[in-house]
């Protein structure tokens, strides 16, 4: 945003700071982290733990992958936390009503899509600042979740099919990991192979030009938020199935920031523009590895937080330097 509004050439050509991070700094940082953890605690590299990491990042991963587009268009979605809770509740009540699994899943995802749609329309059509819109939606959605679900835990008992989503495993890998992989794959496909993907990049790069090329910016932006909401909902379904519980307070304050951090570490500029789903996946795993490694070394929470902050700053400032 600090790029001077000058004439032809000079400063506008400066690439968005984050861009150069992904290809070099992030993998390097990841390698270093892995090496350090492995040295201090060989068990870090055990198959069990690596699978564990994959399982642990699945939920944040799905949300991050789905939020990447939003951030690429210069937006942000702070409301993913409560959406996660809402979706879980919706699924629970659907199960309670004895509906078949597809209906249940649909119910959950629909809630997310609806919230996303609300966000998207407000941002794209009314053109209000995304951060405020989704901040408002954060408290609206949380309030709704608490009204709908109340404080009680809604236990999801003997629903083998539903529980399989979060707890089942195929060929030794948790099913949730497959879901994450599928979503990531799908979004990468969308980004690389569909008009939407190209359009999102175009809007982030030069919204005005995209508009003058005859594209419907508002619709695209709305869609992007819908995707984000749906992603959060899917995450919510997986979580509720993983813990056999639906609870209105799931996805507490801070969830959204973790997700955003993952996306940004992945090299997408928070100001919008150039970004990549694939690199977001990298960012997700980077944070996952940090958390897992520090847990496995039994690092106290205080040091964990400080380290996380410091590492984000270092990684990104390296990127900024490159630019």
């Amino acid at each position, binding site marked *: 945003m600090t790029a001077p509004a000058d004439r032809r050439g000079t400063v506008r050509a400066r690439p968005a700071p984050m861009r150069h991070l992904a290809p070099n700094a992030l993998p390097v940082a990841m390698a270093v982290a892995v090496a350090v953890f492995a040295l201090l605690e060989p068990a870090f590299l055990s198959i069990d733990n690596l699978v564990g990491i994959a399982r642990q990042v699945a939920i944040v991963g799905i949300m991050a992958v789905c939020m990447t587009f939003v951030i690429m268009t210069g937006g942000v979605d702070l409301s993913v936390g409560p959406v996660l809770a809402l979706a879980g509740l919706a699924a629970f009540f659907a199960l309670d009503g004895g509906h078949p699994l597809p209906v249940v899943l649909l119910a959950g995802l629909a809630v997310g899509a609806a919230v996303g749609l609300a966000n998207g329309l407000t941002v794209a059509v009314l053109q209000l600042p995304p951060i405020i819109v989704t901040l408002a939606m954060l408290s609206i959605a949380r309030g709704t979740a608490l009204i709908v679900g109340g404080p009680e835990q809604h236990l999801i008992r003997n629903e083998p099919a539903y529980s399989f989503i979060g707890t089942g495993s195929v060929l030794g890998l948790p099913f949730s990991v497959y879901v994450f992989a599928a979503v990531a794959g799908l979004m990468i496909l969308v980004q690389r192979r569909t008009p939407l993907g190209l359009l999102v990049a175009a809007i982030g790069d030069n919204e005005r030009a995209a508009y003058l090329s005859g594209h419907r910016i508002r619709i695209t932006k709305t869609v992007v938020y819908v995707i984000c909401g749906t992603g959060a909902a899917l995450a919510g379904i997986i979580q509720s199935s993983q813990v056999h519980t639906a609870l209105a307070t799931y996805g507490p304050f801070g969830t959204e*920031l973790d997700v955003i951090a993952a996306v940004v570490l992945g090299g997408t500029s928070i100001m919008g523009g150039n970004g990549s789903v694939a690199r977001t996946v990298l960012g997700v795993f980077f944070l996952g590895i940090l958390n897992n490694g520090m847990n496995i070394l039994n690092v106290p929470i205080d040091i*964990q937080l400080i380290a996380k902050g410091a590492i984000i700053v270092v990684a990104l400032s390296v990127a900024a330097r490159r630019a």
Partner: protein
Amino acid sequence: MTIRFASAALVLFFAATIAFFSVSAPRFATASTVENLMSSFSFVAILAMGQAFPLLVRGIDLSIGAIVGLVGMVVFDLSLIFQVPGWIILPAALLVGTAAGALNGALVVCLRLQPFIATLATLAAYRGLTYAVSGRQLVPGLTTTPIRDPWIVGIETYLDVGRWTGLSTFVNMPWLPLSFVIMLGVFVVLQAALSSTRFGRDVYATGGNHEAARLAGIPIGTVTVCAYSISGFCAAIAALIMVARFTTATEALGTGMELSSIAAAVIGGVSLAGGVGAMFGPAVGAFLLGTILIGLTLQGVPQFVQQIITGAILLAAVGYDRLLWLRRERRPAAGAGPA
């Protein structure tokens, strides 16, 4: 520029809200409610005013809540573990807060990090630091020991303005919390700094037209760092007020304050695009939110519904600001008088 259309509308809305609750909510229009409002939301107002500065230079401070926590814990330690006298603690606390803010600014300026990211990182780091220095963990016995230092606890005193002025003979005047007076002080100082000092001009210029500011020889970097330092400084004051109010500090102090302060600031007409806003709006915005929460509680509206209403009001506020902007866009030539 100090009081914009938005702010004027805000005042009207504020008045309307108060009027509404005064008639609809039982026991709303009482001295004690006013006291409650002043003492429970003065520090929110201070945080909102602090937050306004990063916003004015087109930044944002997500770590403001974490700084509150950090400062609170520092006060806790100094007072209870090291038995430092309060008159030393107060400046120390302010120093810590300002330093934390300055670090944010430095990250943004020197490392060229996006403000959102830089302060997101420090949000985690400062909270972690709070845990690390937490006297509650180091000396478990202290968890049940209140802070008694007069210098600190003294902040939580109430002034019976009513009696001094003799007004209380006619009406039941609310006692004035010192924290509210402090808030007023902060407001006056910061507003003065904004509207009548060179620094204030530089802040508006930096946020309003970065390139123009640079070409005009304004030290953008310094201005930015100062803006974040001010937000840290305000966080420190807020922390002191809270500690005085609770006679202790918890590790979680200030959690979520970043978002409420941003909300209050934006409701108060501070533009996220930078360069637009003042101190008046954020302060009123904070008390508006407070009034609504208290009013709804007195009306017996369930807490959860309150969250929804708060969100809706936030939307309304930005929506209204947008409306004004659109109107200005419609007729660029008009309105060329003093605003």
